[in-house]
């Protein structure tokens, strides 16, 4: 039992954090809100250069042969930066699922995807695939996994409250993958949990910073016990969600038999954490947090969306109950 990350893992995390701090400030996130794609200029390429994009592929396919325990810290960073790039769909779900499926579909797509030359999308079957229009192959995960090449597919777009999340209903010619849909779903839910933790952490950090310098009635807002306890409650949720998200990543990587149950534990707690962090952040900011010009809402809305994506808290609680036999 060793919960510590290796020096390499920590270094990788710090490198990604530095990249995002420099290259993914709020104005870059805003650009993805306003442009045609919902994506940034160049960030995906930079992540590909660092090896992040294809890291979950075997080395034989040009990847880094890394697994969910390596990826989980990067997903937290992606959440913290509100990164509008398909790290979940492509790196956490698409690549390992294609590698698992093997065969002609992997031959056709995997190496390109690892190199960042093709982008993989993913969505729950009957749900929406985020960013399908900027993907090349979309995996629709239901009772089975159907892969739909975007060239020639029919895409119906809907607007998300997070304008960088372009939602698509996807139809078209498909190939059924020889891969475990339950595992693919858990990869998505686990990745969403890690991103929720990162989003929640940013919301908390930004709010702590704001209330420490905002004065009302002659004192910093952050010196009022009500505000302190709001933020302590958000911190508590995050503190206990984060290890479960990391543990879920390990369960996926290690093939733990309780994987689905413990991914649900993580996603339910992470959804609840980001929901509370978003409510708390807005309430402690007051009116300024309610404006479009102020950046806080970029994270709030990402949090709302990710909290509901790949099963919301209630859905995962039901799955836990089933696993417990109640």
């Amino acid at each position, binding site marked *: 039992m060793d919960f510590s990350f290796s020096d390499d893992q920590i270094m990788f995390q710090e490198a990604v954090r530095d990249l995002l701090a420099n290259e993914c400030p709020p104005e870059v996130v805003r650009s993805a809100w306003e442009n045609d794609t919902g994506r940034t200029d160049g960030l995906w390429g930079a992540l590909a250069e660092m090896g992040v994009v294809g890291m979950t592929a075997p080395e034989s396919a040009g990847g880094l042969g890394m697994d969910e325990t390596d990826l989980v810290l990067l997903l937290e960073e992606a959440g913290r930066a509100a990164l509008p790039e398909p790290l979940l769909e492509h790196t956490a779900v698409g690549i390992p699922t294609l590698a698992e499926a093997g065969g002609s579909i992997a031959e056709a797509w995997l190496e390109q995807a690892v190199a960042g030359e093709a982008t993989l999308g993913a969505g*729950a079957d*009957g*749900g*929406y695939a985020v960013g399908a229009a900027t993907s090349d192959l979309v995996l629709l995960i239901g009772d089975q996994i159907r892969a739909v090449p975007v060239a020639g597919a029919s895409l119906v777009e*809907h*607007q*998300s*409250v*997070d*304008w960088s*999340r372009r*939602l698509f209903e996807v139809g078209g010619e498909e190939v059924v993958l020889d891969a475990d849909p339950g595992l693919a779903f858990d990869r998505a839910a686990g990745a969403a949990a890690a991103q929720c933790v990162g989003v929640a952490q940013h919301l908390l950090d930004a709010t702590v910073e704001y209330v420490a310098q905002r*004065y*009302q*009635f002659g004192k910093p807002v952050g010196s*009022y016990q*009500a*505000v302190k306890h709001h933020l302590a409650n958000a911190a508590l949720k995050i503190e206990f969600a984060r290890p479960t998200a990391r543990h879920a990543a390990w369960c996926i990587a290690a093939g733990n038999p309780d994987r689905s149950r413990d991914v649900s534990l993580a996603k339910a707690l992470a959804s609840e954490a980001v929901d509370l962090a978003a*409510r708390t952040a*807005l*309430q402690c900011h*007051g*009116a300024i947090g*309610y*404006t*479009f*010009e102020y950046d806080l*809402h970029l994270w709030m809305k990402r949090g*709302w*969306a990710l909290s*509901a*994506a790949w099963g*919301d808290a*209630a859905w995962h*609680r*039901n799955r836990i109950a089933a696993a417990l036999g109640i």
Partner: protein
Amino acid sequence: MDLSFTPAEEEFRDEARTWLAENVPAEPLASMDTPDGFEEHREWEHHLFDAGWAVVSWPERYGGREASLVEWLVFEEEYWASGAPGRVSSNGVSLLAPTVFDFGTPEQQDRFLRPMARGDEVWAQGWSEPDAGSDLAGIKTKAQRDGEHFVIEGQKTWCSRGAFADWFFCLVRTDPDSERHAGLSYLLVPADTEGLEARAIGRLDGEPGFAELFFDGARVHERYLLGGEGEGWAVAMATTGSERGLNLRAPGRFMAAADRLVGLYQELADSRGSDLDRRDQVVSAWMGSQAYRWQTYATEARLRGGAPIGSEASFMKVLWSELDVELHATALRLLGRDGERADSSWMDGYVFALSGPIYAGTNEIQRNIISERVLGLPRR
């Protein structure tokens, strides 16, 4: 205690319901936080007013029908149940008008109330400033007397629909040497005053629902002073009572929303089976709206018995604002994959609801009021 509605109250309800059924637009209007939607809502206020439904509890001379408080609550139940549009005139009618009735001169009442009620003049609130939000007594905007005029310098913010409004009701510092609650005055300012610029700020949903007001030598005649010079705090606090209490958000609004939530659950349950965990959240919303309803009718009896609304108004503010957030959050969760979609009335409602625990005195301040003024706990 008789909690049945009298025949007269039932008749009033029927009349309102019938009129609304025949007159409420079939299609929802555009958002009142957009320029076009604002004008659509103004038209609707004209229509309401001309039929005598805009301000049912007001005196007839200002366009009301002198309805009782119970009848007003009944009207609100019917209004929101009918799916009628939001009230673009509500800041004037609910927040400013009670103050005009209490503090206005007869001339001011005659000048302002009727156009306000008809939506001919839509009002926005100019109280908050960048450094004075919850701490309203920190207001810095100055209005210096110059003969019969006040000359205003400063900045206001978070004025809802301030980019479209015709008039502003403002709290300003008329005594430049004063501090905190002293030396403030309550001024009514036409939007087209020279030296006043309103700039839209995007609200959470991206619509230009807020404005910042920049005053640079804006001159306002003293006939637009509401209450005495330097007595603005007392006048404002009367308005604050209305804001939190019976006037701004009647139970009918939330009863209708809860009923729609029940309907949404039924509709979705038909297509994908029941979901008892979420069902309990729907029940919570319904219970909250009903609790608010009965507490309001109980308060009506108290007021009729001569008691003031007082600090108990804070109970209502906390209840409806938190109920509104939970109710809409539940709807979004019920919607599943569609919960994150921007183009849904539930998302619009959620985003709007989120402002509730902040405006009109944050809920933290309301809980301070409850504990200190209702329960009597020591201030420090």
